[in-house]
């Protein structure tokens, strides 16, 4: 910031020019070209001399007792080096992100379809695959507990985990719950204050992160008895924290280095093959690589929680919200993963970005024999947004109001209070975002005279030449928190080193941040350039040699690790200037670093960094902690629980073939406040990507589970949007600084994923007149199974 606005004599202008690749610029990603050309090394591309291939045997049943496991035939397969079960685990047998309830390998029972039971290491993946098939498991198959009704009636249907095994506050088959009451709550008296009440039941299917790079990594046993793991993950240090007790190693002997990550979206927050590869490497003394196949990947990571929600909203005749009563039931599946935090988010954000004087909320996550669910972009806020935004449209219809105006009338702003009692103490331009998105020009109507079939529903599948097509428009806005909440101190660490290399000052930035595509590596270099006045910045590979960077999730990395890089770079800058003061006796109070020089704003250049540094390097590490938060009260949900809030508004324009139920999203507009765009190009990319993932949830993405079994574990049948499904996404960015955040920035990645889905469904409702209370919307919902008119 300081280098940009240097005042003073005109002759300083050129030398004082801040790097165009500093913050606010849009330098390109260092890995962009490699990825486009297919030359980037992903974690699945790694190879080590003499390495073995690991593979897991997975349960075909969602719920069964394991009566016996016979590995003898598998061990006889030539080329097999090890076959392991839970009995071979040297340390703790359980792990978990928040609750250690998941066995590293199944012990006596399996709780979901695809649970790992045994491991094989062999000299070739095909050998490993054959050996896996020779492991004989005798099951006593049990009826899976899969519906809400079954889960909530354990007396009849049984427990997913025996109650005495609970390692948390769970009870029955409830993994976690959060209640919230604000104002007067929702009572008959409060209801009586409303002139209009609308209610609805809403359902969200199980979305998958569908990252393209399958889970993979390479574990290399070290001479000191430790392990080096090269891994695609979202948080190196939390992986290590979960792995070390199972491997019976001290944390410092479990060393992780980030390998090339092919997308994450929350799906790499939990462990997948990390422990398995390390167990096999420990056991065989050889490097072990594991790469999931595409279908195994669908079983190998957690998904977005499917949700069933009931919402009731009351408003006065002129549209002012009086109350909201919400119940959100999330299916957490077999193991806890991030369910508690997802519940906390759903409960605290589930009323949307609106001022509501009286709120009652009850959010729960179930234990079931369905696939485990946990972190995915939007994290509990996505499901709720579909509920409350549908309610806003319904309420507008019941009141005869414009849906955008109704939202604006109730929009929260800076100074307002969340139902948790937390005051919004930075810009919250909800009404303005809505106005801007509404004011953006609409796309032209469908040109039926010069029809390009690629632009209409069905595209080259040639289902329509213009027949049956109706246009619809929908709006929505959403709220998401940034950073970890409820008292969690998810600090980030950064090390910055400044030295002269090849006659130039060069900064090196070393963090453990997982680059999963969000652009942290680009932004870190920009921060170093801006703070240190250098052009050359090297990004050190991310590993556990430096302190934790926290997770690449919760839209937090630029805020948290970017903030740590800023702190470390500022410390290096101070140290360098102090060195100059000591050497040259400077007394100026306006010294900064620009263009490779130490510069006084009034007196001009003082010395080049090269001369001042000489052979010495300045190498400093700093931690960045966000302001503290507190847990929500269990019964009332009150508390200063979130670090920061972020908002996005969308408008969707769709064409629907109403006879065939096919949808083409014509345009998806987004307006978002990002506080400060450190890299505007990346920010737009994040918003467009978030919108596209939201589009997937609106119209196609769902893991179909029947009786606990996954039915579409492939990209043939789990559909994600192609380029023909992805419309132009015009983005408008607001930069209203948050005084609590580094550079005033606001996390970007999740808000559009929260807000865009409801706008698309609203547009489809607008075109069809159907209620559409479930997402994803499928063709049969618009045709043969019309579940009710609006």
């Amino acid at each position: 910031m300081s280098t940009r606005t240097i005042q003073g004599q005109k002759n300083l202008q050129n030398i004082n020019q801040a790097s165009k690749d500093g913050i606010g610029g849009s330098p390109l990603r260092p890995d962009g070209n490699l990825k486009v050309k297919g030359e980037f090394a992903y974690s699945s591309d790694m190879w080590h001399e003499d390495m073995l291939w690991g593979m897991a045997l997975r349960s075909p049943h969602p719920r069964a007792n394991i009566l016996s496991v016979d590995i003898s035939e598998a061990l006889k397969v030539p080329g097999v080096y090890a076959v392991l079960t839970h009995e071979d685990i040297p340390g703790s047998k359980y792990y978990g992100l928040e609750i250690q309830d998941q066995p590293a390998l199944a012990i006596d029972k399996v709780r979901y379809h695809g649970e790992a039971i045994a491991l094989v290491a062999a000299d070739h993946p095909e050998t490993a695959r054959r050996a896996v098939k020779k492991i004989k498991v005798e099951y006593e198959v049990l009826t899976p507990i899969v519906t809400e009704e079954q889960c909530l009636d354990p007396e009849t249907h049984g427990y997913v985990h025996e109650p005495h095994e609970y390692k948390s506050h769970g009870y029955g088959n409830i993994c976690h719950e959060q209640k919230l009451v604000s104002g007067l709550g929702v009572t008959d008296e409060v209801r009586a204050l409303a002139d209009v009440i609308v209610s609805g039941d809403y359902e969200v299917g199980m979305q998958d992160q569908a990252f393209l790079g399958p889970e993979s990594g390479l574990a290399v046993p070290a001479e000191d008895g430790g392990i080096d793991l090269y891994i695609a993950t979202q948080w190196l240090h939390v992986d290590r924290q979960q792995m070390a007790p199972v491997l019976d190693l001290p944390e410092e002997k479990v060393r992780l280095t980030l390998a090339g990550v092919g997308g994450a979206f929350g799906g790499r927050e939990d462990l997948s093959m990390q422990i398995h590869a390390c167990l096999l490497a420990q056991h065989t003394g050889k490097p072990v690589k594991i790469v999931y196949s595409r279908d195994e990947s669908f079983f190998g990571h957690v998904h977005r929680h499917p949700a069933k929600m009931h919402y009731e909203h009351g408003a006065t005749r002129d549209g002012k919200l009086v109350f909201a009563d919400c119940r959100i039931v999330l299916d957490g599946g077999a193991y806890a993963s991030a369910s508690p935090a997802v519940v906390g988010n759903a409960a605290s954000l589930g009323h949307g970005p609106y001022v509501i004087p009286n709120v009652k909320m009850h959010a729960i996550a179930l234990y079931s024999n369905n696939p485990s669910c946990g972190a995915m972009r939007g994290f509990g806020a996505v499901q709720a947004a579909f509920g409350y935004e549908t309610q806003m449209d319904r309420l507008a219809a019941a009141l005869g109001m414009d849906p955008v105006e109704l939202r604006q009338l109730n929009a929260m702003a800076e100074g307002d209070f969340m139902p948790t009692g937390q005051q919004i103490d930075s810009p919250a331009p909800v009404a303005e975002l809505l106005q801007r998105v509404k004011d953006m020009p609409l796309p032209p109507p469908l040109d039926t005279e010069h029809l390009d079939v690629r632009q209409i529903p069905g595209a080259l599948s040639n289902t329509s030449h213009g027949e049956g097509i109706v246009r619809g428009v929908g709006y929505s806005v959403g709220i998401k928190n940034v950073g970890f909440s409820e008292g969690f101190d998810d600090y980030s660490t950064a090390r910055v080193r400044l030295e002269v290399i090849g006659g130039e000052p060069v900064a090196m930035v070393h963090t453990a941040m997982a680059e999963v595509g969000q652009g942290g590596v680009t932004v870190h270099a920009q921060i170093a350039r801006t703070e240190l006045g250098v052009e050359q910045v090297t990004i050190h590979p991310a590993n556990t040699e430096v302190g934790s960077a926290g997770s690449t999730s919760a839209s937090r990395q630029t805020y948290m690790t970017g903030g740590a890089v800023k702190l470390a770079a500022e410390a290096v800058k101070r140290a360098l200037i102090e060195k100059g003061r000591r050497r040259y006796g400077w007394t100026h109070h306006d010294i900064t670093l620009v263009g490779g020089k130490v510069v006084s704003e009034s007196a001009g250049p003082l010395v080049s960094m090269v001369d001042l540094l000489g052979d010495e390097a300045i190498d400093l590490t700093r931690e960045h902690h966000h302001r503290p938060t507190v847990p929500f009260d269990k019964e009332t949900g009150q508390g200063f629980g979130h670090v920061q809030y972020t908002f996005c508004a969308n408008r969707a324009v769709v064409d629907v073939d109403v006879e065939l139920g096919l949808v083409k999203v014509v345009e998806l507009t987004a307006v978002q406040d990002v506080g400060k765009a450190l890299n505007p190009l990346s920010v737009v990319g994040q918003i467009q990507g978030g919108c596209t993932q939201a589009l997937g949830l609106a119209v196609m993405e769902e893991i179909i589970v029947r009786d606990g079994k996954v039915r579409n574990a492939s990209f043939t049948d789990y559909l994600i949007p192609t380029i023909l499904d992805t419309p132009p996404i015009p983005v408008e960015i607001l930069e209203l600084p948050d005084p609590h955040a580094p550079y005033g920035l606001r996390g970007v990645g999740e808000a559009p994923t929260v807000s865009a889905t409801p706008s698309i469904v609203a547009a489809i409702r607008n075109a069809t007149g159907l209620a559409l209370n479930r997402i994803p919307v499928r063709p049969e919902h618009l045709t043969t199974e019309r579940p009710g008119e609006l």
Partner: protein
Amino acid sequence: MEFLRPATWDEALAAKAEYPTALPISGGTDVMVEMNFDVHRPSAILDLNRITELTEWTNDGSVVRLGASVPYARIIDELSGPLPGLALAAHTVGSPQIRNRGGVGGNLGGASPAGDAHPALLAAGRDVFVEAASVRGTRMIPIDEFYVGVKRNSLAADELIRAVHIPVADGPQQFSKIGTRNAMVIAVCAFGFALHPKNGTVGTGIGSAAPTPRRAVEAEEYLQGVLAERGLWESGDLLGAEVIQKFGELVKAAASPIDDVRGTADYRRHSLAVMARRTLTWCWNDYSKQIRSAA
């Protein structure tokens, strides 16, 4: 696993005779996916890629002889005139990469009810033949006798598909396919339709809505009857809403779909009726224009 790479067609037939369980592969867009998913573990693979004649086609003016391995991309580029229905179907196959590799021979060999080429081949008429060859000789299998069960065809164990013989279109042809996204999607269901004014017949083909690709026989007979009785082939007059409606209902009735992860049986029936009405309308409008401009 044996990997056989014959250099000539005769060598390929000999290899297939010697290894009747060998799985032929050309583009590999189906076979390799199934092997990667560990669905199939064939004892032998018979690689046909060295046999260049399989990627050639000829047109004698009345029939196109389409080599089994001619990729969909070339069908679109080179044969949309004589084989418009098949070319439209080819447009809907997978991605550009898949269309550059995959061909009709693979679709026929796999005989999946969801294969995109099948409805177009059925609609092209009863004189479509699969040229099947073995060391014992060559057979011309009528398309109506080719599909015999779910992913089963009438090839003998020692036979290979060499080519498909498809009459050159003598009238408008259309193909529609339902997918739950706008590209790169397996058919929820599909419908092919063709007018054959020369012999006064119409052709239909239903995909993904029965154990095999199938013809909507009653719909064809109904429409042929109406066209003949009312002299519509000659006049090119409008069909009328009730004819189009009835045709759609008969196509729908010809299907016997199931519920699966891609769609429901009800939706498949419903959308078949819509596609049948629309493709008939498009074809008839085109035909009608031709007749009137000729008059």
